C-alpha cells in the first residue's frame, strides 16, 4: 500500500469514527418518557414540622454517595437556639451522635427550632456565574447540576454560594451539591430526603402546577425564602421562618 493511500484511508476512517461517536453520544443522551420542559421543580419546608431527627441527611448520603463524615452535606439540618439574653447558637446536627448532651439550660432558651437546608436551586444562581469552565448549569426543569467531568475543583462556586450548599467531594475532588435527586425525580420518584421525612416537613413538587402538595403549601402558609435581598430567587421556600435564620 502506498503511503499516501494509507494516510488518506486512515484520515477517512478517523472522520467516520468521529461522526459515529457523535451520533452515538447524542442517541444515548435522550431520556425516555421524560420532558424536562414540562417541569419546574421546587421544594417547600415547614420549619414547625421538623423534629431534627436527621433522617433526611442520612438518606441523602445513602442515596447520593456523599461521604459519611459530618462536614460533607448535600442537605443538612441546623438547630437554632435563641436564648433569653439574645444570644443565638446554630449547630448543624449530627444524627450519629447521641444528643443526650445538652449545652443549654432549658430555662435560658427563649425559642428553638430546626431548619433543614439544602441547595436552593436559585433562579439566578451565583455558582453558575462564577464557574470558570462552565461545569455547572441550570437544566430546563430548573435544577442546578454540576458536571464532575468538566469541574476542575477550583472551589469558586463553593465560595460564591450564599447558602453554603456546595462542598468539595474529597473522592472526586470536584464540587458537589444537592440535585433534588435528579435521577429519582426524572423517574417520577420523590427526592430521598422528602421520601424519608417522618413528619412531612419537606414538600417537593412542581412550582408551576396548580394542584399539588407544593401548591397547597404555598397557598396555606406564610412563606419566605433565605436571603431574599441577594435576588437569587431560591426555589426552596420556607414557612414559619424565624428572623434569626441566616
Amino acid at each position, binding site marked *: 500500500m502506498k503511503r499516501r493511500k494509507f494516510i488518506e484511508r486512515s484520515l477517512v476512517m478517523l472522520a467516520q469514527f468521529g461522526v459515529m461517536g457523535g451520533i452515538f453520544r447524542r442517541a444515548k*443522551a435522550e431520556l425516555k418518557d421524560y420532558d424536562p420542559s414540562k417541569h419546574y421543580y421546587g421544594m417547600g419546608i415547614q420549619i414547625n414540622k421538623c*423534629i431534627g431527627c436527621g433522617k433526611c441527611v442520612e438518606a441523602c448520603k445513602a442515596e447520593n454517595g456523599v461521604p459519611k463524615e459530618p462536614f460533607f452535606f448535600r442537605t443538612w439540618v441546623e438547630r437554632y437556639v435563641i436564648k433569653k439574653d439574645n444570644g443565638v447558637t446554630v449547630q448543624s446536627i449530627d444524627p450519629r451522635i447521641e444528643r443526650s448532651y445538652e449545652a443549654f439550660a432549658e430555662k435560658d432558651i427563649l425559642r428553638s427550632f430546626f431548619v433543614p437546608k439544602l441547595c436552593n436551586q436559585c433562579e439566578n444562581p451565583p455558582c453558575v456565574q462564577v464557574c470558570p469552565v*462552565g461545569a455547572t448549569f441550570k437544566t430546563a426543569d430548573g435544577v442546578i447540576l454540576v458536571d464532575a467531568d468538566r469541574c476542575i475543583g477550583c472551589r469558586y462556586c463553593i465560595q460564591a454560594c450564599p447558602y453554603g450548599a456546595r462542598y468539595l467531594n474529597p473522592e472526586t475532588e470536584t464540587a458537589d451539591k444537592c440535585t433534588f435527586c*435528579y*435521577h429519582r425525580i426524572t423517574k417520577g420518584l420523590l427526592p430521598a430526603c422528602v421520601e424519608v421525612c*417522618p413528619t412531612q416537613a419537606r414538600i417537593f413538587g412542581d412550582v408551576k402546577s396548580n394542584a399539588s402538595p407544593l401548591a397547597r403549601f404555598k397557598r396555606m402558609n406564610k412563606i419566605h425564602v433565605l436571603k431574599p435581598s441577594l435576588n437569587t430567587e431560591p426555589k426552596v421556600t420556607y414557612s414559619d421562618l424565624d428572623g434569626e435564620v441566616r
Partner: protein
Amino acid sequence: MKNFFQRFPDSLIRIGAVFLLFVSAILFVRFIIPSSLKNEEEHVKATIERETSRSVRYAGSDVCADCHEEYNVKKLGYHRNLSCETCHGPAKEHSENPTETKPVVPKKREACSLCHTYNPSRPTGFPQINPVVHNPLKPCVTCHNPHDPKPPRVPQECQACHAEIARTKAVSPHVQLECTTCHTVPQQHKVIPREVKASIPGDRTFCGKCHSKDSPAKETPKVDISTHGEKYLCWQCHYPHMPEVE
C-alpha cells in the same frame, strides 16, 4: 528520503509542515476531544445523562405495599405518613431481589429515641419521652408496635397525663373530689386527647352546688353567689386544683 525533500524548495516544505500542524490541530480538536467538552448542548446532555443514570436506592413506600401486610396496619396508625424506608433504610435492592437482600429491622431503643427523645427544639405536641427515665433498657417494641404506635394501654387514671394537676389537687381542699365530679371526660379523650377535650364547669351555679349560701353541703366555704364576684366565673379567680385559703 533526502532526495525527496530536496526536490521541493525549502519554503514549500516549511509551509507544508505548518499546514500539516494546522490540520492535525483541527483534527485533534474535532475528533479526539470529546464533544461534550466543546459543545454546550452536548455537555449539558452528557451531564444529565450521567445524573439520571445513577442508581436509585430508596424504592418508595408504594412498592412495599405490594407484598407487606404491615402496610395496611401502618396506614391507619400515627405512623401513617412515615415512609417504610425511614426506619428500614434504603430498600430498592430488596424490592428487586426480595429473598437475598433484607432491609434492616431496627429493634434498639436508639432507633425510636432518634425522633422521640425530648428536645426543646422539637415542635410542641410531638410525642417525646425522656429515655433515661422511660422504662430504661427496655426495647420500645416490647410495649409499642412501631407499625401502629400507641400508649401500650389506655391510661386508667387522669394523673397518668395530668400529673401536675393531680399533685396540686392532692394538697388542696378538693382532694376528696374525683376529677369526674367537675369534668366530664369523653372516652375519646383518652385516645385523642388534643382533639377531644374534657369539659370544664361552664357556669357559676356549678360551684354554687357546694359553695352557695343555700347549699346543703357542710364544712364548705360559702358565699352569696348572686353578689360575690359579679359577672366572672368562679375559676377565673379561684384555681380549683390549688390549695386556697380565701
